[in-house]
């Protein structure tokens, strides 16, 4: 079995969330690599949408680090205004989006705006960018983040990107009749949401990770699916693909 690090595992898990032919609102960092991996493997007809006004059907001819890098514009299917691509999102034409966060809670609400430390002092973070829009308007969204106790809290300090609020029925009530987080991919496992309660449930453990470790790094009594599985490890082919898209291991990080 090839060696891999947590980032590579998360990229592979993210790629598996994309079905062929889906329209994907692509973020930066690991989700971007997950999207490229999906297109290179099981989802060659997935279409990428980027908030700066880019729609791509073909993978960029050269590696990119940010969405505005010129290879990401070269041979795009559409270069338009942010409002035009946001219109695709708002009219329900985006199947899945990916977002990261500094803090997440048991109902999948995300905070990337401001966190309050144990000393009561607030730390200012960059803010929403497009994340709030993706969480409100994509047909489903996937959250990727590092799994640490300070990040997995019972209730986020600030809802930047709505998940299921305080549980079932909340989205409908506040005016978000569809969407919501489908899964959370962390450094420890993959989590999904109980359709009845909208609460986050441990669904897959990454190889070598124990339930106890996940519980100890989660700030609420975590529910676990009765059908807990192990996250499939990346294959050699997948790792080679990832290396092609991130040749300097800029986002993937140090080799294992």
């Amino acid at each position, binding site marked *: 079995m090839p060696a891999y690090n947590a980032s590579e595992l998360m990229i592979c898990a993210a790629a598996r969330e994309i079905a062929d032919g889906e329209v994907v609102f692509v973020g930066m960092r690991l989700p971007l690599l997950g999207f490229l991996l999906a297109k290179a493997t099981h989802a060659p*007809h997935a279409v990428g949408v980027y908030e700066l006004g880019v729609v791509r059907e073909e993978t960029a001819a*050269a590696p990119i680090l940010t969405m505005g890098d010129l290879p990401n514009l070269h041979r*795009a299917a*559409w*270069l338009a205004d942010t409002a035009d691509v946001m219109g695709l999102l708002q009219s329900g034409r985006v199947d899945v989006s990916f977002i990261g966060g500094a803090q997440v809670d048991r109902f999948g609400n995300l905070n990337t705006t401001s966190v309050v430390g144990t000393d009561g002092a607030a730390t200012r973070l960059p803010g929403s960018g497009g994340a709030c829009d993706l969480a409100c308007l994509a047909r489903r969204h996937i959250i990727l983040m590092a799994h640490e106790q300070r990040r997995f809290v019972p209730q986020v300090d600030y809802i930047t990107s709505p998940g299921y609020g305080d549980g079932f029925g909340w989205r409908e009530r506040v005016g978000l009749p569809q969407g919501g987080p489908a899964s959370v991919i962390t450094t420890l496992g993959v989590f999904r949401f109980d359709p009845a309660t909208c609460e986050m449930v441990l669904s897959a453990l990454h190889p070598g990770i124990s339930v106890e470790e996940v519980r100890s790094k989660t700030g609420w009594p975590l529910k676990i699916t009765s059908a807990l599985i192990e996250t499939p490890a990346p294959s050699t082919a997948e790792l080679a693909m990832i290396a092609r898209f991130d040749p300097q291991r800029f986002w993937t990080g140090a080799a294992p």
Partner: protein
Amino acid sequence: MLDPPAGAAEGRRRRPGKHTVTSSKLVSLADAIARFVPDGSSVAAGLCLEAMIPFAAGHEILRQGKRRLTLIGPISDILFDQLIGAGCVTCVRAAWVGNVITGSGYNFRRAVESGALAVEDHSNLTMAMALKAGAMGLPFMPARTALGSDLFSTHPGLKKMTCPFTGVTLAAVAAIVPDVALVHVQRADVFGNSHAWGCLGVMRDACLASRHVLLTTEEIVPTELITRDPNRVVIPGLRVSAVSHVPWGAHPSPVPGHYNRDHQAFLDYRDQSRSAGAFALWRERWVDGVAQPEDYLDLLGEERMQTLRLQHHAFSEPVDYGY
């Protein structure tokens, strides 16, 4: 006939199915219309106003005898009048229906005055905002226009509202989501990626708002020619349902890069539509007599086409999308 609550509720809708990049959408115009314009459809056309009007696609609708259509567009020039004259239409949502160069649309007048046709009267701006709302997945858009006019009395998709920030009176315009947009473009590939240039009118928002987009195109080109200039794409291929290759498909309206406006055809149409009988003759010759797109070119004749082709060329400077 008018159905504005539906229009208003239409702002959010289903995706019509997975997009497959590599499957050709190239079909005959007859097949495109047969498949995507069932009786009862709402059809947006004439979206670049005077230019690039999809006459060939409209005539195919007429030929196939579609019924109970709702037509949507800002100013329609004579295409709407033709479809109305053929009895295809029960409702028009438009800012202006007539013959731009001569004035009245006689079939339109007859149909309205006889009670056979319902009209939802827009202004160009309320139409633009209704389609923009549809494009953006919103149920309405505000505007400052039409206040004090009688458009409100004949247009249930138009209401007065108060700005939640400033308290001023505004018009609220309900979204319009056409079942299908008919657009004519200069060049497209077989997957629905295309370039359009010139005056764009409400084409972009109308296409983004519509459930299906049918392209007719002057030229079929390789995909790489389109993706070499993605800012020139007005509607992305993933939103297009069918592409048909129809040179001269916008005649007698003008198409930048291809041909000028055939003013004489519009002038002739005034007399050809003045009575129901004259219109029947026009229709027999210019629509029913055209079994396939090539027949139209024969009817037009090379000499006339030559007078309409561009006499002066003016090419854009290339831009570089390299890296």
